[in-house]
C-alpha cells in the first residue's frame, strides 16, 4: 500500500512480528511498538521519546541503512545496560520509506 512500509520487530519473548507501518503519521519505532502493543505499557517509551531513558533500546538485525545516531542517543546508549554494537533507541528511528524492510529485536527490560 502507498505510505506504508514493512517492518520486522522481534518482541522480548522472541516472537517476530511483521507489520505494515504507515510512513505518513510522524511515528518512530518506539511508537510503533507501543501502537501494536508489542511490549507492556510502562516498559517501553518511558521518557516519551526524548532519548532520555533506554526503555526502547533495540538491536538492528539487518543491513537497512539508518540515520546516524545523535549525541543524545550515543550518550544514552553509553550508560544503558545490555548495549551491543547494533543497539539503537527506537524513539530516534523515524518511520520513513528509506527504512523499509528493517528488522529489529527489542532489548531486554532494564
Amino acid at each position, binding site marked *: 500500500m502507498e505510505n506504508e512500509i514493512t517492518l520486522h520487530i522481534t518482541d522480548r519473548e522472541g516472537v517476530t512480528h511483521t507489520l505494515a507501518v504507515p510512513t505518513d503519521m510522524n511515528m518512530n519505532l518506539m511508537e510503533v511498538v507501543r501502537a501494536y502493543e508489542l511490549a507492556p505499557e*510502562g516498559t517501553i517509551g518511558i521518557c516519551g521519546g526524548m532519548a*532520555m531513558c*533506554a526503555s526502547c533500546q533495540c538491536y538492528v538485525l539487518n543491513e537497512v541503512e539508518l540515520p546516524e545516531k545523535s549525541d543524545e542517543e550515543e*550518550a544514552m546508549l*553509553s*550508560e*544503558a*545496560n545490555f548495549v551491543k554494537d547494533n543497539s539503537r533507541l527506537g524513539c530516534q528511528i523515524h518511520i520513513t520509506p528509506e527504512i523499509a524492510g528493517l528488522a529489529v529485536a527489542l532489548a531486554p527490560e*532494564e
Partner: protein
Amino acid sequence: MIQTDLLIIGAGPTGLFAVFEAGLLKIKCHLIDALPQIGGQLSELYPKKPIFDIPGYPEVLAGDLVTNLMEQIKQFQPGFTLGEKAEHIEKLEDGSFIVTTDAGTQHHAKAIAIAGGLGSFEPRKPVLENLEFYENKGVEYFVKNPEKFRDKKVVIAGGGDSALDWSIFLANVAEEVTLIHRRNEFRGALDSVEKVQELKNLGKIKLITPAEVAQLHGSDALEAITIDENGSQRNIVCDYLIPLFGLTPKLGPIANWGLEIEKNAIKVNNALDYQTNIKGIYAIGDVNTYPGKLKLILCGFHEATLMCQSVYQILNPGKKYVMKYTTVSGIDGFDGSRKEAEKAVVKAID
C-alpha cells in the same frame, strides 16, 4: 511527625498543581519526593525542553512551568520532604494514614494523593554478577557523605554530569580517583569536562576510556574490579565503585501498598474522583490508569482538581460544598473572607 490534611507523593507538575486546587478548598498539603528538587521529570529529565500543550501557553520551557507552578502555590505554604522516598503506609482506624519515608520521616495525613509520575527516580544499576552483594560494601550509587571516600581508592563509572562532577570533587578527597566510561566523549557542562581534563593532566584523575566494568571482586567487601578495555581485561584495586549511569524511574515501594496495579500504573475510578481501591488514597497524573488514559500534564491538572473536591468531602463529611470560580471569589475567598476580583464601575452617564 509531620501533620497535614493531604499528603501528595510526587512533586511533579500534577502534584504541585494539586496544592493549588487543595488550597482553594482550605486543604493543607505536604509533598514528598524522592528527588532533592521539585518538578519531577520536568526538572530531572528535560528542564530546557519546550512544552506546547499547556493551555494558555503557546510554548513554555519545562523548567519555567515548574517555577510558575511553585509561584502559583506558594501562597498556600505547602510543606516538602525532598530527597526521601515514600516507602511504607499504614492506615489507622480513623481512616487517616501514616506514610514513612526511606529516611524514617513520618507523615500523618487524612488523605493521600499519589502523583508519582513514572515512579521514583532510582539509579540505573549496571548488570554485573554479585552486584547486590557488594552494595553498601564498596558499591555506592550516590555520594551522600564525601568524607566516606577520604584517602580511599575510588572508581567512578559513567559519562554524564554526575560522573564528571563527583570525579572532580573526590579528586581532592580520595587517595585515587579513576574515571571509567564506555566512550571517549563525555556529556556534561563544558567547564566540568575541561576540569576533568586538567585534573587528568595533573595526574589527580586516572581516565580510562573506552572501557567498562566487567567484574567485582572481594571476599567480604569490594577489593578490586576487572575492567574490559577494548576487549582486553585487567584488574584495578579499589575500595569503592560508584556507578553513575543516570536515573531510571521505578514504581518502587508503592507497588506493594495493596493498590490495584494495571499496566505498571495504579488503577483509579476515573468516573468519579481518581480514587484507588483503597478509600482515601488517590492516584493522579502519569502514575494512574483508566480507560482512555492519556499521560499528559494537562490531564493531570484536571485529575488533581477532581481529586481535591473528593478529599474535601473526606475532610468535611456532611458539609455541603458549592464549586466557586476564582474570578468571583479570588483565591482566598472560598470561605467568603476576601473578594479579589475587581468590580467594574457602575454609574449612569449624563
